[in-house]
């Protein structure tokens, strides 16, 4: 089947278009989606699907997320582009109560497909309220599925899976990778299953467990380490809920050393849970403590330079991996 090189956001959009063609219960809503949206993934949707299924809305995130919950329970498949992951906090009740547990608390076992797109992370000076990595919230509140694609191929494949998933999915697109490009399968049957990690680089000395923007940085760090004689494995989790523990634990029991790298804040970030479970489940296979790398525990500065200085770089990942290998 043929492939095409395309951008991360365009690939996400292609996944959406293919599913919208196949399923007329899918609609998309957000600010400016009729005109192509903030990051362009919705371009051309309105001319193909009309304004019944492509809806512009105001600055009203709680409304959008609550509407998604209500429409999904009523059998539609809403896609909401929230613009920024930070806005999850504006719609907290609607996302972490209503989308996550309306069915649970009512004892309603019905399908509920809803995709909330949260662009997350540093993108070059968007500031502390437009760059947050909010994916950990979806891990903490039961009832949601949480994905974070790191490649154009996964952006498409996970979007398609999310739209076939009978449960709400928080779809975190990575702002720092928005302009990255990659080969994307054009087969409309191609999907990336939710809950399956990908081993991006096989290695035998230590495991770097990462996702999102830190995948390309970890891979670059692994190449540097290779030149120093340290063979690092790099696992791209892709989904945080459910998390592919089989893949993580298989790797760690083989390499005996693990570190978790993410752009989210280090304290109580996803890495805290992942590191805790690794030591609980594979303690006697470990040669060293499980390390964590994340953003400094300060709001992200507006300055693009300071922004980069606050999140893990290839240098810091390489240095920390070196330290881990030496323990």
């Amino acid at each position, binding site marked *: 089947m043929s492939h095409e090189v395309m951008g991360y956001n365009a690939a996400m959009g292609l996944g959406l278009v293919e599913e919208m063609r196949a399923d007329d219960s899918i609609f998309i809503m957000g600010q400016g989606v009729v005109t192509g949206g903030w990051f362009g993934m919705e371009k051309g949707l309105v001319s193909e699907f009309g304004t019944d299924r492509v809806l512009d809305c105001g600055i009203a995130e709680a409304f959008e997320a609550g509407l998604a919950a209500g429409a999904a329970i009523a059998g539609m498949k809403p896609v909401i582009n929230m613009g920024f992951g930070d806005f999850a906090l504006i719609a907290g009740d609607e996302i972490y109560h209503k989308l996550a547990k309306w069915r649970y608390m009512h*004892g309603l076992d019905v399908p509920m497909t809803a995709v909330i797109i949260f662009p997350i992370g540093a993108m070059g000076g968007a500031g502390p309220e437009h760059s947050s990595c909010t994916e950990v919230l979806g891990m903490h509140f039961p009832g949601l599925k949480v994905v974070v694609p790191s490649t154009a191929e996964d952006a498409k494949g996970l979007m398609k899976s999310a739209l076939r998933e009978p449960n709400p999915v928080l779809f975190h697109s990575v702002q720092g990778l928005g302009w990255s490009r990659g080969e994307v399968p054009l087969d409309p049957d191609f999907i990336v299953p939710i809950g399956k990690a990908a081993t991006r680089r096989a290695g035998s000395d230590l495991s770097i467990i990462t996702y999102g923007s830190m995948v390309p940085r970890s891979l670059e760090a692994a190449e540097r380490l290779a030149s120093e004689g340290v063979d690092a494995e790099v696992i791209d989790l892709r989904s945080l809920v459910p998390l592919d523990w089989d893949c993580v634990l298989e790797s760690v029991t083989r390499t005996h050393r693990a570190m978790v790298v993410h752009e989210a804040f280090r304290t109580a970030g996803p890495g805290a849970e992942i590191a805790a479970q690794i030591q609980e489940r594979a303690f006697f296979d470990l040669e060293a403590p499980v390390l964590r790398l994340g953003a400094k525990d300060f709001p992200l500065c507006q300055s693009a330079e300071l922004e980069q200085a606050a999140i893990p770089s290839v240098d810091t990942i390489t240095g920390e991996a070196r330290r881990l290998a030496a323990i």
Partner: protein
Amino acid sequence: MAAPEPALLTDMFHKMAVSRAIELLMLRHTREERFSGWWHPGEGQEAAPIGAAAALRSDDYLWYQGRGCAWAIGKGMDPLPILGDLLGKMNGATRGKGGGVPHWSDYGLGIMGEGATLGSVYPLAAGSALASKIRKDGRVSLADFGDGTASRGTFHETMMHAAAWKLPLIYFCENNGLLVGTRTEHVSASADIANLAKGYGIPGVIVDGQDAVAVYEVTVEAVARARAGEGPTLIEAKVTRKHGHYAGDPQHYRDPDYLKDYRDPLELLAARLSGNEAARLIEQADAEVAVAYEAAKAAPEPDASVIERDLYHVA
């Protein structure tokens, strides 16, 4: 105005009598038996739910607020799943997850549920209304709320969009003048929530919420408007909250004579029935509820496996 046919009046009265019987039972049960949940009594406030629900089709979507049980009964639920839930039993509507605050739902009857973060149903009801608009299925969605939650941000966010999109949505406000213990006049310069409709360019209607027939008539009009694609209506039913916010509330915030103008909705509706029909229907309702109560009490308690049920749907 569409006056209800005699058969509908009988049905409304029967449902109100069933609701009343459950309400009285729950007040007694809360007093006399160990009750782990919170019961928010709706006794004396049944007319608005019963009247409005009678104007809905069985496939219309209802998103209710959590006082009493008359919305669910009005929309067609049986007493047993309601009592089963209130008593926290496996035969409740939530199959073991209940225990006081109502989260009963019946998907087939369009009873979509209640949000216990009060006033949270506005955007959800807009969601089902948008679903109906896209599918052109002719269904109407009703969002029921109290005056207290008219101050919610989502009240505004939702109606601003719903009016612009002409969604088949009805905002139904039960205004009892109190939000938990705060007087509405302390937080709103206008005594009438219906005034807010003007800003959205939709009709705002005030109705006597103790009179089920009056509520039915204005809701029929709002439903017709919604089904015809003419968009939302805001109905404000002026009601009396006879009891505390919850059963056992000492109500320090009340005037001693707050019930001086109270009119009983069951008596108001009984006056429209002929002969001894009202007495017969009350007797019938009491018997039905007594049977359901015994069945609920006899039903099994949930075990811990209930905790791990219904989190995700498996295709």
